[in-house]
């Protein structure tokens, strides 16, 4: 599969292959998707979770560097410097550590004034001290005498015994990365202590630490390269400067923005993210209560705890009221069965007032601005929490359930990949959805048409995601139950499989559209005057989108804001136009 990022050739394939799965699914069969025109090279797009990240075509924007890749580059620089300056490899690495691996600066300064460079880094041309011919020498640290073969020194010749060198080196290494620039113990001497000597005399554990510092020194102060911000991750990402898509995904699977190193936040730009994060910390006192994991049931008022990822809540018996965690409305108003219009992503001023008994506190809060912010913040935070939960669920699925399920169904795990793909899709969509709430908060109120398009696209995407999440989280539970045996399970699983796969596909498609629309600054409304009649007729073709993406963008816009002339597919829930009798997503008969 191709994508706009590339993982360094040397990687072994397993983990990343699993994570970035999806490119080979039938989503990419192009023309199979109903009456909508597809680009002929649609199959080039990345898999589900990154499908919408591919509008730059196959252009490579970054490279993940694993430790071994960095070491290889260091080796190359050392060899290069050593041959150009005609110095030893040890001396070359001393120089490179001092020059922060900036080979060209090193060359310039060296050829301008070699003596000065040598002095400043401690590469002496000749010894300061000449070894006397005595058979014994006195160590300058412990003051004991030793035979010559137990005395060592840097290029300067100051003599210290093996034990004292070891102590000196271990102290330096444990003091931190300064050990890379280690000098002779003599306080008046600046001779560099070479890597050869350090590696020879250090303990295994210290050698390990030293070499870690050595690798890390390569990335410090590099403009093009940054460390993956995930805790415990040792990879770095080298970015092609000039590219405008900053989202990168490390091999450790942490997606982050290369530009601001916050968690990946496409389709929202870095400055919006920074503003939003600042806003959140300023409001954190007010917002803490929102993060509380329990809310009263809107019907019976008993507190209900949210311990699942999707927003569909059910009160405990006898009440059993099903409601939406976000808007506290009845879930029946959200479902595809009623054809209900998903609207809990929308903010309408005053809407909350007096509506929720739960919201005593909200009413007390200063209205308008804070209430408006609260709306977006709560949704942002809920999606964040939900994403964390989903990551844990995916992990659980991969490490525990999948194997059991495969035993039970007598199917190889590879046949169950669609479950993993569904969870990966959920995780990625929660991330995108979360950031669209920051986007929504900063979308100017007076841009009515844009706001309408935004809320529509976001609502569609969110509704699809809720269906997918619920299916993956709750409907799958039945099959994971240990009490259930294969005979009972297999037939149901036969319908579950395509349903989940289709939901994954549909959700991916909605999110692609959402991301495109936001990245284009919702420019469709400009060219279409936001009139629902012109939107209805699919006039968006070729607008706004960058290159290949345009027809997909068009698809989102072509969907009408008025859903009355649509039917919802029984199998995948996609809202199809009345004119087609086959579901455009899954080809299921109406």
């Amino acid at each position, binding site marked *: 599969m191709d994508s706009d990022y590339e993982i360094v050739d040397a990687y072994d394939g397993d983990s990343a292959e699993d994570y970035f799965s999806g490119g080979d699914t039938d989503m990419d069969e192009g023309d199979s998707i109903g009456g909508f025109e597809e680009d002929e090279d649609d199959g080039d797009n990345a898999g589900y979770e990154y499908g919408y990240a591919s509008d730059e075509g196959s252009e490579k924007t970054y490279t993940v560097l694993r430790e071994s890749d960095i070491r290889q580059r260091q080796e190359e620089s050392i060899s290069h410097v050593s041959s150009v300056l005609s110095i030893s490899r040890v001396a070359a690495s001393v120089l490179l550590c001092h020059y922060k691996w900036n080979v060209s600066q090193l060359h310039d300064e060296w050829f301008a004034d070699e003596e000065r460079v040598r002095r400043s880094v401690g590469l002496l041309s000749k010894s300061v001290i000449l070894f006397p011919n005595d058979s014994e020498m006195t160590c*300058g*640290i*412990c*003051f*004991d005498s030793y035979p010559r073969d137990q005395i060592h020194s840097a290029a300067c010749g*100051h003599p*210290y015994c093996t034990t*004292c060198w070891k*102590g*000196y080196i*271990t*102290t330096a290494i444990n003091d931190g990365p300064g050990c890379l620039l280690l000098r002779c*113990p*003599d*306080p008046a001497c600046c001779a560099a202590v070479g890597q050869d000597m350090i590696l020879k005399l250090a303990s295994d554990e210290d050698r390990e630490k030293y070499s870690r510092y050595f690798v890390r020194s390569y990335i410090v102060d590099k403009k093009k390269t940054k460390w993956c911000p995930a805790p415990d991750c040792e990879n770095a990402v080298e970015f092609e400067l000039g590219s405008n898509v900053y989202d990168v995904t490390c091999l450790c699977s942490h997606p982050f923005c290369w530009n601001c190193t916050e968690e990946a936040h496409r389709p929202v730009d870095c400055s919006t993210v920074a503003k939003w994060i600042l806003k959140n910390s300023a409001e954190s006192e007010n917002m803490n209560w929102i993060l509380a994991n329990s809310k009263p049931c809107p019907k019976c008022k008993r507190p209900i705890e949210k311990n699942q990822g999707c927003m569909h809540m059910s009160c405990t018996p006898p009440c059993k009221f099903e409601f939406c965690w976000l808007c506290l409305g009845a879930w029946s108003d959200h479902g595809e069965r009623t054809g209900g219009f998903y609207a809990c992503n929308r903010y309408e001023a005053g809407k909350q007032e007096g509506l929720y008994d739960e919201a005593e506190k909200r009413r007390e809060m200063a209205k308008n601005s804070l209430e408006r912010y609260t709306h977006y913040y709560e949704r942002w935070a809920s999606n964040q929490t939900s994403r964390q939960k989903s990551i844990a669920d995916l992990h659980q699925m991969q490490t525990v359930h999948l194997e059991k399920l495969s035993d039970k169904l007598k199917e190889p795990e590879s046949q169950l990949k669609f479950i993993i793909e569904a969870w990966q899709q959920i995780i990625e969509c929660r991330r995108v959805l979360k950031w669209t709430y920051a986007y929504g908060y900063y979308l100017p109120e007076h841009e009515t048409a844009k706001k309408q398009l935004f809320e529509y696209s976001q609502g569609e995407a969110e509704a699809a995601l809720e269906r997918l999440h619920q299916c993956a989280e709750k409907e799958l539970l039945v099959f994971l139950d240990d009490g259930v045996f294969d005979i009972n399970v297999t037939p149901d699983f036969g319908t579950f499989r395509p349903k989940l796969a289709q939901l994954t596909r549909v959700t991916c498609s909605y999110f692609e559209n959402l991301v495109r629309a936001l990245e284009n600054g919702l420019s469709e409304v400009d060219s279409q005057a936001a009139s629902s009649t012109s939107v209805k007729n699919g006039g968006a073709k070729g607008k706004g989108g960058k290159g290949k993406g345009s027809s997909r963008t068009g698809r989102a816009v072509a969907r009408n804001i008025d859903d009355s002339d649509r039917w919802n597919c029984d199998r995948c829930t996609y809202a199809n136009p009345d004119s087609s009798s086959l579901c455009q997503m899954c080809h299921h008969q109406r």
Partner: protein
Amino acid sequence: MANSNLPRRIIKETQRLLSEPAPGISASPSEENMRYFNVMVLGPSQSPYEGGVFKLELFLPEEYPMAPPKVRFLTKIYHPNIDKLGRICLDILKDKWSPALQIRTVLLSIQALLSAPNPDDPLSENVAKHWKSNEVEAVETAKEWTRLYATGA
């Protein structure tokens, strides 16, 4: 007990400190603990500390000489790089320490610090401020403290 395993280096340094003391400096190990030294430093001439005898304590930690000795003034002193508790701000006692330095070099450096106070790298904010805003007056205070605390003891 603490003295039984004393490294040769410490024994040699001690012997040399006793047999050829540096001018204006005396250091002798305590009888109970050979790693603990009672130190006297004479205030350098032409400094506000001239005529004073300053008592210090010096302790060689287990890691010595890989780690620096711990040194502290016991006599009250008015100096921008020495605080109320007698702690000293001196680079070789911290990151610039090298195992090739010795007790003798440390004490000589402390003596030199008395000759050349450095209010730009202060340990005692107030004294340093005083030194920078009105050096003449600060030097007077230092002299007075020397008279009060560092003489005739």
